[in-house]
């Protein structure tokens, strides 16, 4: 047993593992059932934003509600595409580079940001995000400014001896598998971190930074670590997005986009690791289904948000917990009370 994994009993864990494996296998088989390239595109976008939303939650569980996350995503995207475009580096190298650069900026911004907490942190982070986006506008020679950057190279084809060459330009299926693998990889790391001593320290800081530092948790250090991890994966997601979308505009990473990411996390539920995954899936895919509503389509997005707020206080992921508790209560009530 490891810290953070005490509560559930052994049998449940086994069922959980099978469920996860089944879900992942289902996701791997998905392209067989979906022949619409457009829906595949939507799934790919969902995967990318899932990475970003989960990494945002990593920052969130350390008590830092950042409104700059899309900007860090954009940072990774632009760094990766600029290196790939101008210096002809391979995207396999520039995608991690995009992550690292977002992480470096996250750490540089993070140290001064540890001076502020709670809502003040959110507000200063908002300005940091805006400043990063403004920076993209200043270096428009490389970023293309608001008009956007095009000519970003796609992922290069992979040749594995004995297997047919995987060409990323041929269809969206290789991209889907690439992003599925990337998402599973990133989420595994984030999950592992959250369920370790580090994750517990993050949650401890969020609950009471005073108590946390009284037991020797380095508040500033762990907060910057959370930012570093979160920004790294945001950068990775952004860089992957750049090489998939092959066009970038800085308006995709502004205030409203950061807020959107936050909505994904909050609607999904902050209490569970799966919250942002569910939130992103619902909020990306459902509005796409209702695309035909045209000008009425925003009501769907807004409606989902209100539904969640009114009926699911812990987000969509919290709904399962809610149902479970209600069910348990029901069972308990049915049981005859002990007479003692």
């Amino acid at each position: 047993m490891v810290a953070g994994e005490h509560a559930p009993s052994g049998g449940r864990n086994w069922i959980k593992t099978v469920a996860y494996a089944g879900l992942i296998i289902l996701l791997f088989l998905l392209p067989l059932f979906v022949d619409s390239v457009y829906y595949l595109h939507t799934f790919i976008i969902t995967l990318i934003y899932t990475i970003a939303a989960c990494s945002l939650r990593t920052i969130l569980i350390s008590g830092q509600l950042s409104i700059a996350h899309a900007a860090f995503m954009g940072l990774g995207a632009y760094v990766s595409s600029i290196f790939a475009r101008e210096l002809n580096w391979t995207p396999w190298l520039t995608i991690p580079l995009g992550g690292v650069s977002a992480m470096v900026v996250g750490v540089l911004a993070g140290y001064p940001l540890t001076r502020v907490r709670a809502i003040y942190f959110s507000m200063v982070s908002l300005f940091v995000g805006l400043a990063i986006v403004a920076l993209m506008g200043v270096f428009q020679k490389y970023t293309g400014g608001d008009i956007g950057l095009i000519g970003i190279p796609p992922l290069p084809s992979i040749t594995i001896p004995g297997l047919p060459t995987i060409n990323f330009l041929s269809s969206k299926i290789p991209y889907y598998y690439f992003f599925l693998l990337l998402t599973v990889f990133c989420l595994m790391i984030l999950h592992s971190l959250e369920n370790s001593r580090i994750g517990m320290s993050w949650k401890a800081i969020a609950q009471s930074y005073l108590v946390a530092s009284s037991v020797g948790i380095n508040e500033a250090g762990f907060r910057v670590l959370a930012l570093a991890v979160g920004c790294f994966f945001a950068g990775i997601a952004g860089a992957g997005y750049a090489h998939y979308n092959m066009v970038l505009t800085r308006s995709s990473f502004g205030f409203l986009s950061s807020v959107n990411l936050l909505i994904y996390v909050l609607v999904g539920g902050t209490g569970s690791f799966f919250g942002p995954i569910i939130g992103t899936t619902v909020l990306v895919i459902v509005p796409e289904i209702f695309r035909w509503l045209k000008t009425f389509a925003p009501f769907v997005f807004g409606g989902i948000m209100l539904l969640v707020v009114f009926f699911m206080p812990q987000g969509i992921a919290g709904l399962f917990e809610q149902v479970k508790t209600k069910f348990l209560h029901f069972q308990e009530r049915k049981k005859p009370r002990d007479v003692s």
Partner: protein
Amino acid sequence: MISDVAAQTVVNVLMLSSIYILVALGFALLLTVLGILNFAHAAIYMVGGYICYQLAVVVGINQWASLLISMIAVGLLGLFLERVFFRPFLKDMNRIVVVTLALIIILQATINVTVGSYIRRIPSFVPGVLRFSGVSVSGDRLATFVIGGVLLLAVILFIRKTKTGLQMLAISQDSDGAALQGIKTHRIFAVTTAIGCALAAVAGSLMGAILSLSPFMGDIMLVKAIEIVILAGIGSIGGVLIGGLILGALDATLPLFISGSATDLTGLCIIIILLLIRPQGLFGREV
């Protein structure tokens, strides 16, 4: 003519600051008393502008009267919003964020569907331009300057001098304590939201005359309002004056020296540095 430019810039700073102050005032009020970041302020501001436009241009009644009606209508909308959307979630920061953001989306879409997104402008409230020795101010801006100043003063006096205002102040300091003292917090919250929304309607109507009306007119103003309130310090209404002046000064003078996107960056960097020196804002309480 450097002196002309300088004089005009001073006027620009004052006028822009008064615009910002007017927009941020209602936002600051809600943040102070209810303790919520009402992102929907931007959308309410837009709705206020549209109501004023519909009354003044489509229905064709007196402009100042339509401004007044818009104020009242949006104030009532505020009562509704407070009752249905804010009150159940006041203690839950995360849910209030989602609710107010959802309201933006829904209000924007409502205006887009009903009125359409054609860009409009409310005719000038005060037509004409005031000119003196190379400096000029349009009547609308002057009116905004006066109205903004009067409203700021009125809000401060209201809070300091009236019973309701003092109760607001008490709630802003300690809402649970105030409730224990027998203050009907929900009534105060409702009144505050109504006033905040009415202020947004005034701002929206005047901006509809100075700039233009579109369903998305609030998006950038929202960021400006947040900047001002944070600079001023959460919980300080008087600080909005200084916050607005600083932001107005930055936005009105930087474009003279730096061009294009770099102005944004410079302004933001200055604000970030100010906030890192004083995280609680210039007039905020100690963190």
